[in-house]
C-alpha cells in the first residue's frame, strides 16, 4: 500500500488492526486474575439487584402494596432481572485509569504512540465489557423467550446499553481532565458514579421518581445505560420511542466527542508529565 493511501486510511480512522489487537490485549489484561474478574461481574450486577429484590419484597409482601407508579410486583421483579443484564454493560473504571495516568505522568507513555490515547484506553478497557455484553445478550434472549420477550428487542436494548457504555466513558474522560488542573479527579469521578447509580435506573426504575423531578433524569444521558434498555427489552417502549432514544444517544456521543476534544486540548497545554 502506498504511503499516501495509508495516510488516508489512517486519517479516516479505518485502521482496524491496532483496535482489534487492543481489544484482545485488554481482554487478556482483564482476565489475568480470573477470580477477580468473575467476582467483579457478580458484585457489579447482583448487589444492586439484591437491594431491589429486598425493597420490592418489603413494599409488596410486607407492606401490602399492590402497585407503585403503575407497576405491580411481578413487573418490578422483571425490571430488576433486566437491569442485571444491562448494569453489567454500563461502564468500567477506565475513566479512573485515565485520571490516574494524568496524575502520575503515565499518560506520557501513551501520548507518544501513534494512536489516540482516549480511544486506545477505551478499547483496551471495554474488551471485557463486550464479552460480558455478548454473554448477557445470549442469556437475556434465552430467558426472554421463556418470558415471551422479543429477541429482537433484547438485541436492540443491548445495543443501546453499549452506546451507554461509550457515553459513560466519554463523560469520565472529560471529568478526568480536571486532574490536569487539580492533579486529582477521583472524588469527581466517584460523584459521577454515584449519580449514575441512581439516575441510570440501576437501583430503582426511574418512573418511580416524582412527576416534578422526572425532568432531572430525562435531561441527562444516564437513563440510556440501564433504564432505557430495560424499558425496550420489557416492551414498555415502542419502536419509535426506541429509535428516538437511539438518536438521543448518538447526539450525546457527538456532544461528548466535542467536549473531549476541547477539554483534552486545554488539558494537554497544562500537562507537565511528572515523575521522571
Amino acid at each position, binding site marked *: 500500500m502506498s504511503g499516501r493511501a495509508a495516510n488516508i486510511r*489512517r486519517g479516516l480512522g479505518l485502521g482496524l488492526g491496532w483496535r482489534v*489487537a487492543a481489544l*484482545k*490485549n485488554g481482554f*487478556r*489484561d482483564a482476565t*489475568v486474575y480470573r477470580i477477580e474478574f468473575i467476582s467483579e461481574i457478580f458484585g457489579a450486577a447482583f448487589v444492586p439487584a439484591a437491594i431491589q429484590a429486598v425493597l420490592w419484597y418489603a413494599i409488596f409482601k410486607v407492606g401490602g402494596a399492590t402497585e407503585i407508579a403503575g407497576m405491580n410486583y411481578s413487573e418490578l421483579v422483571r425490571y430488576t432481572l433486566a437491569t442485571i443484564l444491562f448494569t453489567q454493560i454500563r461502564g468500567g473504571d477506565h475513566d479512573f485509569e485515565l485520571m490516574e495516568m494524568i496524575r502520575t505522568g503515565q499518560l*506520557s507513555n501513551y501520548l*507518544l504512540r501513534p494512536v489516540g490515547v482516549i480511544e486506545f484506553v477505551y478499547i483496551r478497557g471495554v474488551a471485557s465489557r463486550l464479552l460480558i455484553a455478548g454473554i448477557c445478550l445470549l442469556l437475556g434472549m434465552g430467558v426472554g423467550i421463556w418470558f415471551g420477550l422479543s429477541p429482537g428487542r433484547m438485541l436492540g436494548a443491548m445495543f443501546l446499553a453499549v452506546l451507554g457504555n461509550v457515553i459513560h466513558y466519554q463523560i469520565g474522560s472529560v471529568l478526568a481532565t480536571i486532574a490536569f488542573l487539580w492533579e486529582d479527579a477521583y472524588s469527581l469521578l466517584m460523584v459521577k458514579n454515584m449519580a449514575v447509580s441512581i439516575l441510570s435506573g440501576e437501583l430503582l426504575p426511574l418512573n418511580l421518581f416524582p412527576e416534578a423531578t422526572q425532568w432531572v433524569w430525562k435531561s441527562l444521558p444516564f437513563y440510556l445505560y440501564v433504564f432505557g434498555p430495560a424499558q425496550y427489552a420489557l416492551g414498555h417502549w415502542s419502536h419509535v420511542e426506541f429509535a428516538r432514544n437511539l438518536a438521543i444517544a448518538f447526539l450525546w456521543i457527538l456532544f461528548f466527542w466535542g467536549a473531549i476534544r476541547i477539554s483534552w486540548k486545554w488539558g494537554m497545554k497544562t500537562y507537565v508529565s511528572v515523575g*521522571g
Partner: protein
Amino acid sequence: MTPVIQAKNISRTFRSTQKGEGLKGALGLLLNPQYRVHEALKNVSFTLEPGSFNGLIGANGAGKTTLLKILSGLIPPTTGEARVLGYEPFKRPIDFRRQIALVMGQKAQLWWDLPAMDAFDLLRAIYNIPTPVYRERLHTLTELLDVKHHLNTQIRRLSLGERMKMELIGAILHWPNVIFLDEPTIGLDVLAAHKLREFLRVFNHRERATIILTSHNMDDIERLCSRVLILRSGELIYDGAPGGLLREGERRLRIRFLKTPPLETLAQATGISPELIILESPDEPDRGGNIEDEPAAEEQKKDPEERAVYFTIRHEEIMGLLQKLMSQFTIVDMGIEEQSLEAVIQRLYEDEKTSPPEVHS
C-alpha cells in the same frame, strides 16, 4: 547535513504550589496557595546530526528530563523553538510519533500484568509492522539483550534489569529514527548495564538512529557518546566531544599523606583552587558509578587521614606542587593519572554550588 534535532533558545518554566508544614500549611494551601516558579531550562540552543549518539548530562534538576520531554513532544517549551525530524514536537503528528521513541528508566511503559510478548504483539499492531519483519526484529532484539526465555513471563515478575531490557525492546520495535533515553541503566547491575550499553552501541551503528542519552553513569557517556551536552541549572554549559572536556596536558596527581590536612589548608599551601582538589574515599579510589551519589554516611565517618587527595593540575606544574607539599607535609604515597571525564564532570557539578555557570563550546 541537515540536523535531525534543532533546539533554538528553548526555555521552560514550571509553577508549583508550596505547602507549609502541619495544619497551618494545609489551611494555607486551601485558602491562600503560594506558588513557586522554577526555571528548568534557560535559552538552550543546539543542533544534532542524524545518526549521532549524544550524551545529555547534568546534576539532578539540571533540566535534562525536561529537555527530553520537550524534544519528544510531551510538553511545549515556554519560549523558543524545537524541531525534531522537521516536525514541531508538541504538535505530535502521527508521522512524527511513528519515528521516535522515549525510554524513561523510572517509568514502566509495558503492561504490568501481561507477559512482554502480549505487549510486543500489541505494539506490532499499533505501528503496523509486517509480521515477518516483526518476528525478525524481535528475534534480533531478544538475542542481543538475552531475554528470549523471558518473553512469556509477566512483566511484574521480571527483575529490574530484565524489565528494562523489555522496555527498551518495546520502545524500539518500530525502528525509530530518533531515540530519547532517560537514564536507561538506572538501577541495573554492572552486567545488565554493560549488555544494554553494548546493545545501544550496536543499534546506533547498524541502524544509524539518532540517540540522546541521559545518564549519571559516566561509563555510559564515555563508551557511547561522540558528543556531550552538559546542562547546569537549566543552562547549556558545554556542547562538544567528551574529549574536549579534558584539557590538554591536564593530569590527576594522587597523594596520600601521613596525616591528611584539610582541603583549605592544602589549597592555601599550594595556591591551587579548592575546586581542583578532591578528597577521595579509600574504599572507592576511582569514584566509579554514580557521580552524584552523596558520600555515604559510613564513608564520611571514616578517618580522613586514610583518604587520598587528588589534585587536578597541568603536567608541567607537578614538580613545583610536589616540592611545596613535601616542604610542609609528610607524603606516604603518590601517583599520576590521566584526567577522567567523571572527575571533570564532578568538578562542573561542584562549581554549580559555588559559582554561576560559564559557557563553553
